[in-house]
């Protein structure tokens, strides 16, 4: 399997070299003005996009193989069970302004990254215990980084750490990636130009990147983005909505691609917070595993994927999407759609189904509300389908659409809600990236956050397993722990996972060497190899 994947990647690179055409400016949209240009502080899609295209990293997780490839470092070794990592650096590298790159820059970057005053989420991933992170510069081309305690998945974390220059007079814009930021017109566009000192060459020894520049147009409206794509103003769209995907496919099937199931999951959960202003009898339903399992069994996920997402989604299995090849638990199967089984479970729990209505032991009619974000058509349709599915087992659901800030306020501050339907993109494949969700003490443990001690035995078990995997340097052992967490989540269903969305992208046929991945960034993960066809180049020169 690994051999075949490596072969595929080699084939892609070779074909890229064969199709290579230098020059041209490619354009695509980012949804907002970037919140920051600090490479160590990616906050949202726009800033993360710029950092990905300009930042040089020691190693890069290949978006197709999901394995680390050498970049600025030619080799690395994780030592002392994850407490230390040694990097051997590539020789002769220079930043975009010509300043040489050396091990001193790695030390400088780590010092900046671990500065507590920076509050970098990337840096937080390295904080394994009390104490300082020490970087030992062994020579200009080799460096050791020592952590106070073992850091799980240590090597792959460096995929998100762009190297800074300690000596460049233009520290803010000096870049080691394929592009550097050349121009920024607030609210309009950001122009990234080819890094003349970029180190990478293609299989024929040709200097990369092929493109002269990438123009990132700031455009929030997805429909206008699609119109601009149809007109040829932009050449790529990442994360297309299914209906827009279908429309573009009807115009030209070659310009869109379903890259397969992604790590973007839509899910539903019940509020189990003790301090929430919901009646105790409702809290008793929501904390009942049988109730949650029954609700889950009564939802027809296949219909949801087929109707709402036009078939560009898969019924979700559990906490980890199958797109995450290594970490998803392959033993788990999707929850079956079985309303009869759901009713049997509810009857065993003391619920009564009578004349189309479900009542609990005390005679309370089972009715709850689902909140979701207004103006998200797909999510509203999903809620409407849940509403009809649950009506079959006598549960009355009220769908309430609220503005985004009201939803966030309710689920994270006032806890004044009963159930919530939202989606989440898991950009970090490693289980460490979701510690904030699964530890019962964390604020993002949405169904019952910030617990002083775990409310249930299964949450205590998840806490133990998550801490164990985080402190282990043995990948096989970590996989076992994380698999068990996924099994518990599958059995208890604190989150009722609904569908895993497919990665839908649009790429103009004029763009060469594009190989969309289901992982972020789907379209431009190999930006240095992207090129424009001759006709597109001619058009650009004509303008």
């Amino acid at each position, binding site marked *: 399997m690994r051999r075949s994947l490596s072969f595929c990647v080699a084939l892609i690179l070779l074909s890229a070299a064969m199709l290579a055409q230098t020059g041209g400016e490619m354009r695509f949209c980012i949804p907002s003005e970037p919140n920051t240009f600090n490479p160590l502080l990616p906050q949202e899609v726009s800033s993360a996009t710029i950092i990905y295209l300009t930042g040089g990293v020691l190693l890069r997780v290949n978006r197709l193989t999901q394995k680390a490839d050498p970049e600025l470092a030619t080799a690395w070794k994780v030592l002392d069970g994850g407490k230390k990592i040694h990097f051997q650096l590539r020789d002769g590298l220079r930043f975009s302004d010509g300043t040489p790159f050396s091990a001193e820059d790695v030390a400088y970057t780590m010092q900046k990254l671990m500065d507590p005053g920076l509050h970098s989420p990337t840096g937080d991933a390295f904080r394994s215990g009390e104490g300082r992170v020490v970087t030992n510069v062994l020579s200009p081309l080799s460096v050791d980084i020592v952590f106070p305690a073992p850091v799980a998945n240590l090597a792959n974390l460096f995929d998100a750490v762009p190297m800074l220059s300690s000596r460049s007079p233009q520290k803010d814009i000096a870049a080691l990636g394929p592009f550097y930021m050349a121009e920024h017109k607030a609210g309009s566009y950001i122009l990234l130009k080819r890094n003349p000192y970029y180190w990478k060459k293609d299989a024929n020894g040709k200097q990369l990147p092929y493109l002269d520049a990438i123009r990132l147009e700031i455009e929030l409206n997805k*429909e206008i983005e699609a119109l601009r794509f149809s007109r040829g103003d932009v050449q790529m769209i990442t994360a297309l909505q299914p209906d827009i995907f279908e*429309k573009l496919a009807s115009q030209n099937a070659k310009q869109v691609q379903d890259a397969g199931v992604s790590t973007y999951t839509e899910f539903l959960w019940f509020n189990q917070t003790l301090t929430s202003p919901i009646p105790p009898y409702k809290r008793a339903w929501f904390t009942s595993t049988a109730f949650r399992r029954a609700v889950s069994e009564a939802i027809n996920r296949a219909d949801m994927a087929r109707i709402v997402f036009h078939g560009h989604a898969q019924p979700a299995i559990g906490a980890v999407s199958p797109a995450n090849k290594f970490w998803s638990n392959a033993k788990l199967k999707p929850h079956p759609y079985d309303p009869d089984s759901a009713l049997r479970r509810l009857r065993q729990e003391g619920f009564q189904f009578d004349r189309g209505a479900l009542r609990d032991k005390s005679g309370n009619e089972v009715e709850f509300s689902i909140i979701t974000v207004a*103006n*998200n058509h797909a999510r509203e349709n999903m809620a*409407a389908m849940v509403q009809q599915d649950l009506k079959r087992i006598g549960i009355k659901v*009220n769908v309430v659409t609220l503005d985004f800030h009201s939803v966030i306020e309710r689920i994270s501050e006032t806890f*004044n809600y009963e159930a919530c339907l939202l989606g989440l993109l898991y950009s970090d494949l490693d289980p460490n990236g979701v510690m904030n969700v699964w530890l019962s003490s964390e604020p993002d443990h949405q169904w019952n956050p910030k617990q002083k001690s775990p409310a249930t035995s299964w949450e205590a078990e998840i806490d133990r397993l998550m801490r164990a995997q985080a402190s282990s340097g043995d990948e096989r052992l970590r996989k076992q722990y994380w698999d068990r967490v996924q099994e518990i989540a599958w059995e208890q269903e604190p989150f009722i996972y609904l569908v895993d969305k497919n990665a839908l992208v649009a790429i103009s046929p004029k763009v060469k060497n594009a190989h969309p991945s289901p992982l972020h960034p789907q379209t431009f993960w190999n930006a240095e190899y992207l090129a424009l066809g001759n006709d597109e180049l001619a058009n650009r020169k004509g303008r």
Partner: protein
Amino acid sequence: MLRGMDLRGGWRELGGMTRNPKIRLFAVAVLVLTIGAALCANFLAPAGYEHQFRESPGASPSSQHLLGTDDLGRDRFARLLFGARVSLLLAPLAAAISTLLAAFFGGMAGYFGGWIERVALVVVDLFLSIPWLFLLISVRAVLPLNISPQSSVIVTFLLLGFLGWAVSARVVCAGTRELMSSEFVTLARATGFSGLKLVRLHLLPNLRGTLMAQFWISVPVFIITEANLGALGLGVSEPLPSLGSLLRELQSVVTLRPEPWRFIPLVVLVLVVSCFEILLNHSLISSRGTSEVRA
């Protein structure tokens, strides 16, 4: 809220049209037919507005689904009838509330004049300067979550009624002030008419045309406002339809398919609002005639 239009210009232009009894009859017929169909929705569309025919989402018109089905497979004809029922019954209710409030506040301001009028007009200006859409979104956000879709839509229209009186109040105030300075009111006061008697015998009968006009203006305005709220995903909650929520199918300019039946809710909305406007213009012309006679 949505009253940026200059009705007087439209009044003059439509004046000739609305004097035509055939057109008025047509408008009445359309409204009666629409309201009648909406009231008989249970019989005309037994499929119901919420049942999802999941094997045929986005279907074209057929004998089973006269206007096809929406994205979730719900019968579009049934949703149109039930949606029209919601909008056409509740918009007049909201219009009645806002007209009554306008009559009270505008009438008081015009009747007493002086500092009371100034304070009332400041309050009116304050109401007009508030961004209503954001206020409505906020109000919707603080409502209880577990209210039925029916209650939710009633609350939405009641809110529209309670918040939409300011423009009408200004018109009523101006009308009352004009009446208060008229000779026949001066004469009535000189002969010892008390406040209530003056209001009952002289002010209200002379303001009737203005108030009716404000009512008829408000009905289509509230239908369109609810449509705006519906387009934001607020107001009427799933699975209940309204004319506004049905228009959401037309929201996407990119994915909109050139299928005429998808535009039927828009056609019905335009038709209903136009018919209300025709009757409104007739009402305005009649009231002007009445005012001239009474003066």
